[in-house]
């Protein structure tokens, strides 16, 4: 058996190095001046009997298996390893920062898991995300470099991505070609196909969780709601997942038994959004969300969705009037025939008939219809970095935007 020992992605924490002194004081929110410092059990004499000299370490642990790509293994302190540049987002359980590795200059994204607020200690969702990301490796899934502990918080260190889909669709400088949009759609589906193959449901596919870099590569991020599922049997999960606008009708109707097909609905929403540049179904609550879906696809009938009447909340939110399916009429000005075909299959009311990610990649839209997918490499000419958070801020303060525009990902 060939053992894959490469593991370039894993940058080891140099745990064997003497750790810097613990800096007392309450954990503070890192500002742009803040740098992260390592803390550890040894420095907290609250727990250990007292200060101690670091214990001897097993040789295997002391020797990084992979040459660390950022050269952190060689010395002294991992304090000051990352300098925070700016905040770029808000995750499920903490803020996301852009930071620079002070040795190599490479940018990373730091996702902070706040511990001090958690009564129950380490959040189970964070633990799930860490375990999931550690087991995933795919060009369309964001890469977790390493974990770091500092100032009473745990940080996840990710590869840095310049933009997210929401941000990049709102900007006006760079226009995506049809081939670009097809590529983005394809990359998203490839990422989902990989996740589902690995037995993972993402459960929060939306524009701000789909990241892009200046090379035009798309990666799925934020696995705070994701979980492993059992392929053989369907289990009961919570239906309070997926941001409302991307939530499939079966969840809106209260089902708790579902699988990867919930992600496919969200993917369908994203596909339409790529062309229309804004979210397609924008409800304010579960009811209005269903209504906005009905306005496009018509009201679900037992013919189109045999199980609809068995949905837990169907009787409660039963549509009062019958609406016809207007999807093709409404969207034909944006989408080609083949694109409409695929979107329709992704947004199938009946979860059991909804197309899978692997099947979707084989759709004529990708395999036959011109133009062939092409990475939006032109993104590298785009000025600034476009994340949902930044897009939001721009609306609020145009001025602030200008200051950060100077930064270009190296």
């Amino acid at each position, binding site marked *: 058996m060939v053992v894959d020992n490469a593991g370039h992605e894993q940058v080891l924490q140099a745990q064997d190095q003497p750790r810097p002194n613990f800096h007392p004081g309450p954990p503070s929110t890192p500002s742009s001046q803040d740098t992260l410092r390592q803390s*550890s059990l040894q420095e*907290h004499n609250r727990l250990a009997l007292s200060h101690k000299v670091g214990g001897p370490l*097993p040789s295997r642990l002391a020797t990084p298996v992979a040459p660390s790509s950022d050269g952190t293994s060689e010395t002294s302190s991992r304090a000051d390893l990352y300098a925070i540049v700016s905040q770029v987002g808000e995750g499920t359980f903490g803020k996301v920062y852009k930071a620079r590795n002070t040795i190599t200059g490479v940018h990373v994204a730091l996702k902070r898991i706040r511990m001090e607020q958690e009564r129950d200690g380490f959040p189970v969702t964070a633990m799930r995300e860490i375990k999931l990301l550690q087991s995933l490796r795919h060009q369309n899934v964001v890469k977790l470099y390493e974990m770091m502990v500092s100032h009473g918080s745990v940080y996840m260190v990710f590869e840095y991505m310049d933009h997210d889909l929401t941000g990049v669709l709102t900007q006006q400088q760079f226009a995506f070609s049809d081939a670009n949009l097809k590529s983005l759609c394809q990359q998203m589906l490839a990422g989902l196909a990989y996740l589902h193959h690995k*037995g993972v449901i993402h459960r929060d596919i939306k524009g701000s969780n789909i990241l892009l870099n200046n090379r035009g590569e798309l990666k799925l991020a934020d696995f705070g709601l994701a979980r492993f*599922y*059992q392929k053989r049997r369907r289990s009961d999960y919570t239906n309070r997942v997926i941001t409302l606008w991307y939530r499939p009708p079966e969840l809106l109707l209260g089902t708790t038994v579902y699988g990867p097909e919930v992600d496919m609905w969200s993917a369908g929403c994203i596909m339409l959004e790529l062309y229309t540049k804004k979210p397609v179904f924008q409800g304010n609550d579960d009811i209005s969300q269903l209504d906005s879906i009905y306005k496009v696809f018509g009201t679900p009938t037992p013919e189109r969705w045999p199980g609809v009447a068995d949905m837990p909340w169907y009787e409660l939110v039963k549509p009062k009037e019958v609406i016809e399916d207007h999807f093709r009429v409404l969207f034909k000005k944006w989408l080609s025939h083949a694109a409409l075909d695929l979107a329709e299959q992704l947004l199938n009311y009946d979860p059991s008939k909804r197309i899978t990610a692997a099947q979707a990649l084989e759709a004529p839209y990708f395999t036959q219809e011109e133009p062939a997918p092409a990475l939006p490499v032109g993104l590298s000419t785009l000025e600034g970095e476009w994340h949902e958070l930044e897009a939001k801020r721009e609306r609020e303060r145009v001025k602030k935007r200008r200051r950060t525009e100077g930064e270009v990902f190296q």
Partner: protein
Amino acid sequence: MATDFWASSHYKRWIVDRAAVQRARAEDRQYVDDPEYLDFLGIFFANAISKLGKKLGLRQRVIATATVFFRRFYLKNSYCETDPFLVIAACCYVASKAEESPVHIKNVVSEARSVFSQDMYGIKTFPSDNSKLAEMEFYLVDDLECDMTIFHPYRTLMTLCCKEGSSSDFDTEAGELGVGVNDGPRYWGTGEGKLELPGPALQMAWFIINDTYRSELCLLYPPHMIAVAVINLTLVLHNPTRTSIQNQSAPAQAAAPRRSSRQASNHTKKPAQDPISFLASLNVSMTQVATIMQEIIALYTLWDRYKEESPSGETSRGSLAGQQGSPFTTSSGGTKRSATGVSRSGSVNTSSGSNGGTPMDTREEGETGEDGKMVVTPTLLSRVLRKMREAKLADLARGSGPGRPMAVNKMIGRAQAAG
């Protein structure tokens, strides 16, 4: 597991060698009278984890994960400098979350308080504050380097030896992460097919795996190797299975003329079960398997001298006490259990006078077993642990003392390791 074992941190970073395990105990060895106590402490702590885990209703795999966390933590820390009981509680708590069967932090604190206040542990001061446990959890996760995906031998055992679809008898599969993923290569090698172990033998193998967590085996060898070693041991120790194997191979030489009839009967019975060639077909190092078997046997020999007092009023034949025994406890006990395969309680506490006296002072007065060696009890070990920590504290207070030259040595050692 959805994760590929060969790509996992478990394989890449957390399988260590014997010397590393030894080094991790260097400081503790400074403060203990007899280094052998440290081995007994390994059993003692694993039992405590198991006991707390059972109280919390954790499944066997979760308890196993907690035990691995505990051992990994003490690759980097010393018993004498930490509170192992707080660490145990944190390990159980983290494992419950990592294995998707979370329990509430309050329950962990209150169950730990009640379990560890029993006489044999004598911990009257287990913190009642949730935040203490949450804090410990934080340091634990830090020292575990956030590597929380653990592979266990149970899964290999069930994949190799369980009948298709009957796995629900055991709790392996239920709720295990990514269990639905059945594609990808089997990570122990090329082996095709299965070895069908009869129920009782399978159960015995399962229990032996439970027992391996009393030692450092989970740090030293990949889980699938441990599983193969355990299957080997089971074939030897489980009488009916061994007999059937012997019957299978013996007539092959003795009764050559009747070969045809034997084959015929084999055909009517089933596809011939040949455990020996099945094991030989596995793409694993049989030398290493033999080493692991030796170490398991060594564990049982040690364990034989460890006697857990039964807390008064509680039946010691319960789930936990049932696991104390070993197939080697006494020769008769061993064979008896091998024969039944299921009953695990036979040999435990048959000579449990140890909880009577609780001798206050010298451990030299400790009970001696039939073979003249000392019997070790949890009460004794609790006292050893307390003494270690007091000695360590005293050294720290003094600022120097016998600990000093040791520290210097360690600095050198570390410089060498770094350089």
